[in-house]
């Protein structure tokens, strides 16, 4: 285990893609301390900002308020990063494997264009979670992102596969231009959910405003939801799949594209 404690809060966001198991796994203590980070246009050493303990491990722990530390776990393929506190932008972007756990909040672009692995943020996340970077054809290609509380704009924008679970509420444009994969919204979302979605599934456990280009199809309980429920149950998220307690209303769209995506809205019995 390598422990990094933030001792010098950077004035501007610090670009620290070296905070990654793949980079540190084979490095000595000295080499880790000397790793380059960028403060604006200036290159600095990792130990200018962090107190480093340990060496040569694919498990990292970051302590302190790292809300201004960008690119933690960028393109990681293995190992584990635990952030005790907040994390900055681009957490786990391009990630291919391993796990990241954040006890606090994370900023925008969590898991952007990731293709594998697990990211769990206990607090809130910013916008563009699991999204495609500007101009890219697709966002997240696989893997799982779990958000304990609320998410910002454009959750899963252009995602192709994988799962994003937001236990709280998402802001506008969740699933924008989505091409596949699954987004689960524990407490619904604000406006224009699923706009331009081509394929994929958005499940909301809370009523949400729908675009006029989504058409009501049926009320049912899809078999795949049970599979998801079993899997997400092991990760601590409860997805209702018991027909005694309710069914899902299925809406298809977005007809403006036109798309074959679906939005499933949980409808408890008695409503």
């Amino acid at each position, binding site marked *: 285990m390598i422990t990094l404690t933030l001792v010098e809060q950077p004035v501007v966001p610090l670009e620290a893609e070296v905070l990654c198991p793949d980079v540190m796994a084979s490095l000595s203590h000295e080499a880790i301390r000397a790793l380059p980070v960028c403060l604006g246009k200036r290159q600095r050493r990792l130990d200018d900002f962090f107190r480093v303990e340990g060496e040569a491990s694919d498990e990292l722990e970051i302590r302190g308020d790292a809300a201004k530390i960008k690119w933690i776990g960028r393109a990681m393929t293995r190992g584990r990063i635990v952030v005790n506190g907040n994390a900055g932008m681009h957490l786990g972007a391009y990630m291919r494997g391993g796990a990241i756990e954040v006890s606090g909040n994370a900023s925008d672009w969590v898991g952007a264009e990731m293709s594998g692995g697990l990211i769990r943020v206990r607090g809130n996340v910013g916008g563009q979670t699991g999204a*495609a*970077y*500007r*101009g*890219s*054809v697709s966002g997240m290609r696989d893997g799982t992102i779990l958000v304990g509380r609320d998410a910002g704009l454009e959750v899963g924008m252009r995602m192709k596969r994988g799962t994003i679970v937001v236990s709280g509420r998402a802001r506008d444009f969740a699933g924008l231009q989505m091409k596949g994969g699954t987004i689960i919204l524990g407490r619904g979302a604000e406006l224009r959910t699923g706009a331009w979605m081509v394929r994929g599934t958005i499940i909301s456990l809370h009523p949400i405003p729908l675009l006029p280009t989504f058409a009501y199809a049926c009320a049912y309980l899809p078999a795949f939801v049970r599979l998801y429920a079993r899997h997400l149950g092991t990760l601590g998220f409860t997805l209702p799949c018991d027909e005694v307690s309710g069914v899902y209303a299925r809406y298809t769209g977005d007809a403006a594209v036109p798309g074959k995506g679906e939005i499933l809205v949980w409808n408890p019995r008695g409503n």
Partner: protein
Amino acid sequence: MASDRIRITGGTVYDPANDVDGVIQDVCIDGGRIVSQLDDGRRIDASGMIVFPGGVDVHTHVAGAALNFARGLVPENHRMARKFLHGPERRAGLGGMTPTTFATGYLYAGMGWTTVNEAAVPILSAKHTHEELHDTPIVDKSCLLLMANNEIVLDLLEAGEVERARHVVGWLTWAAKVYGIKAVNPGGVVAWKWGKNARALHEPIEGYRSLTPAQIISGLAAIVDDLDLPHPLHLHCNNLGMPGNVATTIETMKVLEGHRAHLAHLQFHAYDGEGWDTMRSGATAVAEAFNAHPNLTTDAGAVLFGDAVTITADGPWQHLLYQLTGRKWGNLDVENETGCGIVPYVYKDRNLVNAVQWAVGLELLLLIDDPWRVFLTTDHPNGGCFWRYPEIVQLLMDVEFRKEQVRKLPSAAQQRIVLGDLGRQYTLSEIAIITSAGPARALGLQQKGHLGVGADADVTIYPAKPDEKGFLFSYPRYVIKGGEIVVEEGDLIAVSEGREFIVRPAYDDQIEEYIRPLFQQVYTMSFENYPVEIERLRRPELMTLGPKPA
């Protein structure tokens, strides 16, 4: 700098313009030019290496408003592109499909190319183009002016006022400070402003009473000949990319009889079939017609599988391509002069149309008999990036490798092409022709493309053995540009500033008074701000007029 005295000794020299074919001899450089002999100076031991004249790209898109638009449209490529870090001599930049200006110079020079011809400049954005060319280091540059959809010129051609049209073209050429004239989809971009295209060579164009694309083509070709421009009319034919466009291309060759012309990116104009589902190679017919027209030169516009960005003044075609891909599309309307469309594109080997396109470019290079008339290009970045030229060289030189690639294509695609049946292999001398000597001659650049006494000292020294990917021409050991060593042992060591070749054709100065009121009526900028001042070009070189001997 240019005063370097260099002796390249022991190398195997390929200088086809001077009938030197693989002879071990010295190449001597003094004052930026090739000299007959030199007793002192720095010696470069090129024993066991290949010495070529520096590469010349006859058709590429490396500067200007359209390319910049394309750069802006594909940020996802920049993130993945090769990075050039800032250094004491070098500017930061990015490679990729649409390299930044400085990186463009580094990449061309790093591959051994020392002269590039930017093939499409509207007068309205000529200032921008020249600024970017100034920031494209090392290589020498020239550029061509878009003319086949300029409404002032077209109105004159329709009215039969050929002489006045010639003066207008001459004035515009000097106003834009360019080297030659380009025609893109003659009449088609004008028609695009009405939502149409110009598909038939002999039918009137939308918005005109009688003017046809054929009249524009022959009219402009005659004007370019009459103005004595060193490079003939550079023509992007009608119906680019359309299945069945073979007929248009062959008919265009007939229209051009009696004139010089260069047909750009012929690959995109050599498709047979009735539609996308029946599209097949038309290279045999096009090459046969081309072989019979010694007044023409062409470049391959070859396609390589992978990412590309298509950029062309051919607005209507780009809209169609956008509808086919359903991805991004950019469209520019350049007032009364031309248009522009941008569509990022991926050529896939499993896609029948793309597989045919890939084959057609190579087929044309192999089926056109005279290497002095067909040149290596990818119409960068349309068919692939210029820094992938070494891949094409390998396909041309190694028939077994080529056949192996053909066998990887879907069998349906193999039935639509003839590439698998072609046994021709390019020799090193022929490669030197299609990459340097030929394009230099077609451009009328007498000091380029050869290693004779008096030529510009642009020399590329390649290792004799291919690199680990099998490419012979990816990483030259030395590149000398204008007598200065810019690449040594494969590393870029010096960055010089290239020159810009321009021409000043003869025209009646009074023609300005004819253009001014027309201009003020319809353009959004003031007439005084329209021409590019000569001071704007940092290292212009005024070239002499008159077609150069073939």
